[in-house]
């Protein structure tokens, strides 16, 4: 549209498809300064720029809440659908049928996903709809003055809310239980890991759930709160050091000399390289993933990284025997049944 930037300024750095980083920008953010969500938006921009994904080849989806406003603030040239509270998954599922060459990215929050949207979230996950599903998780409803959300830890005390008496919903665990094929947890204060995970998620042929702790600087950022910057900086414990290598790049092993390496090859031939840190962690081991999440939950650990990945199951759209040509570009003679079809149907009845 007329108001959106599309001119590539000369001498600006461009990627392999000739786009500058400014081509990936959105409108200026209206979220609070320092909001974790802005950091995540920036990493989405960086990931898409570095992966040479044209904004037109990606569709954004969101629900309702601070998180769900953020698609306005990145990839302004992309199509986007801001749906209803907790009902983004169904919109994305329907929308992505139209052109299977498009990548889908959904941005949700802990209220949008873990409360009103828990049902649609889990059904999207169990169907393995190929898209990136980011939960910007801060434990509170920031848009309505900071009430506890379903992911707030038990015992969290906030000045205006009192003490949270309920046990939290663990989004990564919910995804695991629903047979997600790609589950990660990260921290908005760790932009490099966020970016590498987004890149890997964009290459996965299935649902990729990213539960990203994204502090709410206005309502839930005290030092002892699990969703705060300080807690995250002091307590984040990565499972591994994670690097994404796109399919076209040769892997230079010398870049990864120290320590044990694990490689996970994704659907499009790209590779995630996981460098061992303190302990061995195998993200293809479902039981280890669940055990790790359970331990993290009971000990208040912020364990981050690629928790689980399985590249083998078919994606949702693989089950539908659809043609390569996008359904939404089909002409009448391709989608309207022939006259003889109706004659046949009539013969069943008469």
């Amino acid at each position: 549209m007329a108001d959106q930037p599309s001119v590539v300024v000369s001498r600006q750095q461009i990627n392999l498809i000739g786009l500058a980083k400014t081509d990936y920008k959105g409108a200026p953010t209206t979220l609070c300064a320092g909001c974790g969500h802005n950091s995540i938006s920036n990493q989405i921009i960086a990931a898409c720029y570095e992966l040479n994904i044209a904004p037109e080849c990606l569709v954004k989806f969101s629900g309702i809440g601070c998180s769900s406003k953020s698609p306005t603030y990145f990839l302004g040239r992309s199509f986007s659908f801001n749906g209803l509270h907790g009902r983004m998954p169904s919109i994305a599922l329907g929308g992505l049928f139209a052109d299977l060459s498009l990548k889908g990215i959904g941005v949700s929050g802990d209220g949008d996903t873990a409360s009103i949207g828990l049902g649609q979230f889990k059904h999207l996950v169990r169907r393995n709809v190929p898209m990136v599903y980011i939960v910007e998780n801060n434990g509170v409803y920031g848009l309505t003055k900071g009430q506890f959300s379903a992911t707030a830890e038990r015992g969290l005390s906030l000045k205006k809310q009192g003490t949270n008496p309920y046990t939290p919903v663990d989004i990564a665990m919910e995804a695991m239980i629903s047979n997600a094929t790609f589950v990660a947890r990260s921290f908005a204060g760790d932009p490099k890991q966020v970016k590498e995970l987004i890149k890997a998620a964009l290459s996965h042929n299935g649902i990729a759930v990213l539960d990203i702790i994204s502090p709410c600087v206005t309502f839930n950022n005290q030092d002892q709160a699990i969703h705060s910057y300080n807690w995250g900086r002091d307590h984040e414990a990565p499972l591994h050091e994670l690097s994404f290598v796109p399919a076209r790049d040769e892997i230079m092993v010398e870049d990864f000399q120290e320590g044990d390496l694990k490689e996970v090859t994704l659907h499009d031939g790209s590779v995630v390289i996981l460098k061992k840190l303190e302990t061995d962690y195998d993200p293809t081991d479902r039981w280890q993933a669940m055990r790790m999440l359970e331990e993290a939950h009971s000990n208040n650990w912020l364990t981050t990284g690629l928790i689980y990945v399985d590249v083998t199951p078919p994606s949702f759209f693989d089950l539908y025997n659809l043609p390569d040509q996008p359904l939404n570009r089909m002409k009448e003679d391709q989608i309207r049944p022939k006259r003889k079809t109706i004659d046949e149907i009539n013969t069943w009845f008469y």
Partner: protein
Amino acid sequence: MTGKNTYAVVQAEDEIAAIGMAVGAGWAGLRAMTATSGPGLSLMTEYAGLAYYSEVPVVIWDIQRVGPSTGLPTRTAQADLTEIYFLSHGDTQHIMLFPGSVNECFDFGWKAFDIAERMQAPVFVLSDLDLGMNLWMSNPFEYPDRPMDRGKVLWEEDITRLNGEWSRYLDVDGDGIPFRTIPGNKHPRGGYFNRGTGHDENARYTEDPEVWERMMNRLRKKYETARTFLPEPVLRSKDGAKAGIIAFGSSDPAVQEAQDDLEKAGMPLDYLRVRAIPFNQLVEKYIQDHSEIFVVEMNRDGQLCQILTINYPAYAERFKSAAHADGMPLTARWIRETILALKENENG
């Protein structure tokens, strides 16, 4: 298509997801529909409002049963009219179709998609349990008599031709219907941000009072345009009739029989079967031409009568409600006796 499917059927987890999927697909340029009955429709309300306001084509079939609540789920009624007429919070106006036979269900099946894509709006088709779940005699289905109408869609070459200058919600043609693009359009200026929040002609968020009112008034204009795209009412007249019947949907055979009986009893009445809301101009003319209108329908409150009264307040006194709902289809006898009784009351 070399053995590949050019369609997809998804069994959704619930009605909210069902309409969400259909709205997502409709937005992305697919012809999408879902079918439900009254309780499901209640669940679909929020997305119906979003589809109306952000102008997404989608088709929703309501096979009406007896409500409120779970009501009589195995029995028939025509009692979701006012629900759909006012569906959603805020100001909405919805397109409603009323098939009266199995053949019309088939025809409205494809016509509803044409209308939804032309009007960029949800289209509600109100069948009922009697029509939808019982065995009926019907004529053979007829092949569509015209090409598909995919509505106002811009592709890459169109936007290039316009030098990138287009606006998602601008009324270019004066009919209230804007142009849209659909995901997959690779022109750098092809995309837009679909939202249920207040937006201007370029789909940008705004709370500007003038813009809000301008957008809502354009939607009203679009609804006016819809009148000319919808199935016309069907007139069945009788010689010497000064008064008339208005009815809709599956009561058609019973109404026709009652109309014939009343003629024999010395009370010739015309009969107009409305097939869509917003009403065609012919409905207004019919009301003008008849001193008295018996509105026959299968519900307690006379819902069509209420909607007619809202639309034609100047003729409100002409409408006489003949409404009845007990879960069973209307009978010709009940219609005949009710109209005679209404007439009696008037004379008495």
